[in-house]
């Protein structure tokens, strides 16, 4: 069986939608971060697949993916640091408790 582009794109789309869904519904801040990672990884898959199947002569998508991975890592590190700081104050990770400021 030949493997086509869509066989990669559909899982990536599902991953992206799961990420969006998780970002909106999860209560735990770490789980929200994982959802964000899912979204970013779906983007990476998209870039690699488009590069591999549509424009096999060049490397632009692959290079973009490398940078995107590094950026995602930086984002996670920063988010974890801030979450630890919040945890020291409120003693849990529930996003519903982070409501001191609203409207």
């Amino acid at each position, binding site marked *: 069986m030949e493997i086509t582009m869509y066989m990669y794109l559909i899982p990536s789309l599902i991953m992206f939608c799961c990420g969006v869904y998780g970002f909106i519904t999860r209560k735990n*801040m770490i789980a929200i971060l994982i959802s964000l990672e899912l979204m970013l990884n779906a983007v990476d898959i998209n870039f690699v697949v488009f590069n591999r199947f*549509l424009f096999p002569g060049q490397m632009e998508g692959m290079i973009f993916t490398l940078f995107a991975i590094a950026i995602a890592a930086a*984002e996670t590190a920063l988010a974890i640091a*801030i979450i630890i700081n919040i945890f020291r104050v409120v003693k849990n990770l529930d996003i519903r408790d982070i409501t001191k400021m609203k409207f």
Partner: protein
Amino acid sequence: MDYSQFLMMRQELGLLVVFLLVFLYDLFMPKKAQTHLPVFTTVLFAVFTLLGLNLFWAEGTAFGGMYESTMSTEAIKRILNIGALIVLIQSIKWANSEFVAVRRGEFYSLLLITLLGMYLMISARHFLLFVIGLETASLPLAALAAFNKNHYESHEAAIKYLLTAVFSSAIFMMGLSFVYALGGSLYFADLSTAIIGSESALLIVALAFVISGVGFKLSLVPFHLWTADVYQGAPTSVTSYLSVISKGAAAFAFMIILAQVFGSVYSQVWEWMLYALIILTITVGNLFAIRQKNLKRFLAFSSISQAGYIMLGVVANSTLGLASVMYYVLIYIFSNLAAFGVIQAVENNTGKVSMDEYNGLYKTNPKLSAAMMIAMFSLAGIPPFAGFFSKFFIFSATLQTESVALYVLVLIALINTIISLYYYLLVVKAMFINPNDNPIATFKSAISERIALVICVVGIMLLGVASCVYTFLTNVSTF
């Protein structure tokens, strides 16, 4: 490799030198000299800004066209420099305060690095460089928002900012992957030729994703929910930086992207998206601003509606629109920083930020009240002050092409200007008219805060009247 192309990046290199000097000063100077770090940074940056005003202008491309420096990008970088300089002057006292003093080196390093990110964002002609610039500009800002370590609100602001920022940049990059699939390249120039005349659904989805990603940075309305919380929780210096510099850079970069990459599909695809966004942004920002009691939140919603006005220049999609966007950003920097300067002075001395507590401020601190009044008048767009002229130019740039939709758009914006007058005057009324038995006591603000306020007020008074500024910006504005 031809190293002379680095000479195109003179602004970036200059800023990098400033950053390195500040970093080394923070690292190696003895403890005694550390107290002078804020002044050292400010003076260094002032020298850099003032030298840049007529030196170091460069035109050309670097790195195979990934980076381009034109007269307009050079001009907007200098405008941002002026704003950042005022923010630095304002923050001197705060940076020397008890809890911040230990970590002030980090404050300055992070601030300068975000500015470098914005430079890259403005000059990028390739989406990879743009994304790197965008993230360099937004990630350190989350760390800066969390800078008040002993205030819980500060952390809350930071996590809200960071999570929404990452979410929106993920959506933005998803849009980019679709754009890449369409065009097979990430260079702006290649992409724009690849999508001429295309009306595919993929392009529309990609553009919607890209607009929402940048719209987050600009806090346009469906993506604005982080703004008020972050502005309230973050330290005031960071808030003022976030509200003017980051917004100005994003608006300019947005305009460059829309014009250079998607310019050929203007009327088919993104014109109407922007109409809807602008009307929503201006109206919702205004209506929510009316009910705010905290002045920082109040300015957050006011800055949302101001972003809507900036977008009017983007929708014009012409060089005149570009010039009026730059001019608007310049005036907005001075007006908003004047307002934040007053808030910061009052907050540093008394710790009060709510509008009720400003009642009767005129009796005790007449000069601060006058500065605040001028800032509010300029933000609202009352004639003798610069805010009127920036609004005027942005409306006239939008109305250059005759179409009914644009007339309706500008009419709605005008009506909203009148609504905004109401809440801007609420602040003035609180300070001048509302009675108060124990108003904020008379205090003497620090010399740095006074200098910053004087610069802002003079800027508001002169920039509207001195027509050479606008003439200069129209002369340099090219895509």
